[in-house]
């Protein structure tokens, strides 16, 4: 569709809107790099006379951010690993075989997509407590080991394969696991990348569930750690310090996004189906 707006006017509007959108993050970044000794003042909102990493050093000394990183990575890694395995097995079964009750089972699994796990916080909390996994990393990850969304997405890509292909492979004496690994999975590569990135950004950023299921820094992920940091008494209104903590939590994944923009965007597009 050709747009009627003259291109200069449009460029100016977009530049203004972009500046508005970018302002909060840019400003927090600027605030985090100010020397703590230079107070904020009206009219002096951006950089101070020099850049300083002091706020970062203080933030790192006040809370175990490195530990939070490891916890987040362990939790997200476990979810991605297990979910990919369970979902590719189930998706393979639904795409490759006809079996009694297959439609019913598929529908039952899809139910999960209609009810966000976030809403089932309370009963899942009891289940994890009952299993003795409260305040452990497996406890954070366990509810997400089976995913309707991942099963659905992989089944869609598996269905793109012609049916005869699997049959031919079976006649050639190919075992089911060889079929899955050498024929089905390679064709779903693009979906798998999108899936991994969508799981990554969802669980990396998830907050409420990790908050209720953890109580100590030893297992707490980045998001819950940051919120705890903002509520520490000695932080008060030290905005430079708060901004530095926010940047510590935010920047690494953000930089990864900037590098792998295309793949991330595809991941986000696919995650919309959830």
């Amino acid at each position, binding site marked *: 569709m050709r*747009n009627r707006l003259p291109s200069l006017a449009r460029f100016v509007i977009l*530049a203004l809107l972009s500046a508005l959108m970018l302002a909060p993050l840019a400003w927090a970044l600027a605030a985090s790099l100010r020397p703590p000794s230079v107070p904020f003042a009206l009219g002096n909102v951006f950089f101070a006379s020099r850049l300083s990493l002091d706020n970062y050093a203080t933030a790192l000394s006040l809370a175990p951010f490195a530990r939070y990183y490891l916890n987040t990575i362990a939790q997200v890694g476990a979810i991605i690993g297990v979910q990919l395995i369970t979902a590719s097995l189930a998706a393979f079964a639904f795409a490759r075989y006809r079996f009694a009750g297959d439609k019913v089972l598929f529908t039952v699994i899809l139910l999960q997509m209609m009810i966000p796990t976030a809403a*089932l*916080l309370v009963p899942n909390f009891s289940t994890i407590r009952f299993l003795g996994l409260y305040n452990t990393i497996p406890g954070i990850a366990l509810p997400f080991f089976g995913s309707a969304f991942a099963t659905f997405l992989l089944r869609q890509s598996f269905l793109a394969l012609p049916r005869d292909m699997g049959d031919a492979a079976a006649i050639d004496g190919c075992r089911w696991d060889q079929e899955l690994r050498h024929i089905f999975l390679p064709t779903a590569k693009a979906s798998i990348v999108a899936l991994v990135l969508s799981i990554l950004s969802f669980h990396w950023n998830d907050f409420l569930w990790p908050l*209720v299921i953890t109580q100590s820094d030893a297992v707490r992920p980045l998001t819950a750690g940051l919120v705890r940091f903002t509520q520490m008494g000695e932080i008060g*209104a030290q905005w430079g310090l708060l901004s530095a903590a926010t940047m510590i939590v935010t920047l690494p994944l953000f930089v990864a*996004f900037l590098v792998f923009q295309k793949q991330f965007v595809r991941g986000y597009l696919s995650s919309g189906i959830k």
Partner: protein
Amino acid sequence: MRRPRILPYLLVAPTLLFVAAFTLLPLGEVLVGSLFKQKLNIPRFRHPVFAGFGNFVDLFHDPEFLQVLANTGIYVAVLIPLLLVAALGLAFLLEEKRAGVGFFRLAMFHPTVLPMVSAATIWMFFLTPGYGLWNQALRFFGYAGPQNWIGNPSLALFGLILVAFWKNVGFLMLFFLAGLQNLDRSVVEAARLDGAGGLKLVAKVILPLIRRQTVFVTTIAFIGAFQTVDHVFVLTQGGPSGRSSLLLYYLWHMRFERMDVGGSDAVTVIIILALLAFTVTNFLVSEQHEK
């Protein structure tokens, strides 16, 4: 084929097991649990006591809960139309590949990548009176109203809406962009030759063509609005005086601060019913139009 009959069931079993344990079973648990009174901090109600629909009756007589319902209603009714219109508008502006479009798209989209808690801490700072750029900017445009948005009972909810808007508008734009790029250009050009232009072209020709994306975007915006309350934790904790508490935040408060298990099960049931009602209506409406 001499494939063992049991294989497909074994393959499906792990996924089914986790879905059963963390979606189906909990669903049954809250349905049953919502009918029992159980409060962990009151000895008499330490163990569940059957109460029929007592929990629901209590909730709907509780001014605090009614306030939460009103807050959630306003939050959804303001946030979602704003998001849809802005996301569609941005998609129109950014559809064509021109100088700077890549950068502009990135500028709109970048908050999607941040965790909501980071977005909220950034905005906490941004909205702070005195230091906050937000008020300085508003003052530039002649605003002389209350300074502290998140500490003001009538503005706190809108502070949350602002953050959620900033965080999600680029994400939703993505789906409209995809929709516009797949448009059948010949139809649009034909309408344009027939003299349709501007808003009329958008309303009569383009919107019907991207109806599927619109239904879809509305659904994810709605579900997202219900399942993300991270900014409430960071910015307002539901306050001042309960004026910015949302359903899912209230659920947490009910279970982990008030220790009211039965009440929190009832709130869960209400959240699920609201989500299902919306999803089903949305689906039916879109199906009707397809015919």
